[in-house]
């Protein structure tokens, strides 16, 4: 049952991800990505990461992808014929990607973790928001404060870049 759920969700996820790369029209591509992000959120839920699952939908699907859709509509991007890379580059890219995938499978097998009998039970309170918050606001305090600077820079540069008249 569990394995079945995994395979089903994984198939849907991979199909959606392929949709992002292969769809001709950018808007379909963006929607495929939304679907893929949604299935990722379902995976997070099943991995006992409820908080992350909800935030995944709020941040990625609810905010970032809306921005992508806006830009696609703003620039009125339709299908474009000469849009794929040259055949040689396509072949190279495919080879590299499959090599990477094969390497992962090989090393996963060799390390023996995939033979383990599942992930086992979780400790009590592992999925509670309070524990993640505890980590985030004590151990990772510095990184957290730095993100505010990152966001500040993002706001300023977006305003500067996107405004029509620069002073």
């Amino acid at each position, binding site marked *: 049952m569990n394995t079945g759920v995994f395979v089903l969700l994984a198939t849907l996820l991979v199909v959606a991800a392929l949709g992002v*790369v292969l769809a001709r029209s950018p808007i379909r*591509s963006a929607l495929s990505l939304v679907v893929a992000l949604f299935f990722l959120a379902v995976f997070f839920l099943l991995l006992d990461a409820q908080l992350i699952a909800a935030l995944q939908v709020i941040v990625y699907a609810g905010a970032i992808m809306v921005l*992508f859709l806006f830009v696609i509509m703003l620039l009125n991007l339709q299908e474009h014929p000469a849009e794929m890379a040259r055949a040689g580059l396509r072949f190279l890219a495919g080879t590299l990607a499959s090599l990477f995938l094969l390497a992962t499978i090989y090393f996963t097998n060799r390390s023996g973790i995939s033979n383990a009998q599942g992930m086992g039970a979780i400790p009590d309170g592992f999925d509670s928001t309070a524990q993640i918050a505890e980590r985030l606001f004590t151990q990772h305090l510095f990184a957290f404060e730095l993100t505010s600077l990152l966001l500040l820079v993002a706001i300023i540069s977006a305003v500067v870049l*996107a405004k029509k008249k620069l002073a």
Partner: protein
Amino acid sequence: MTAVPIGWFLILGSLLFSIGALGVLIRRNVIIIFMSIELMLNAVNFVFVAFARQLHSLDGQVMVFFVMTVAAAEAAVGLAIIISVFRNRETVNADEFNLLRW
């Protein structure tokens, strides 16, 4: 979900990452390249969460917060750049962004 070993998650994560990388390499539309990068970031998030579950350590989940923030900042700035380039050159094809090329 406890019956599925971590290896499967790793392989699925790397499959997603490869698909994203493929998108970056074969598509010429800058916006789709951007979306493929988002996909790659998400593949990494996925592996973080899977390892957090396997190792019973919440640091993996905390890391997802920061990846999300970086992805958001990247999307905001990147798309602003695309818009301002489009204003000047009327294109979003990565091959035609060649003013800085030599």
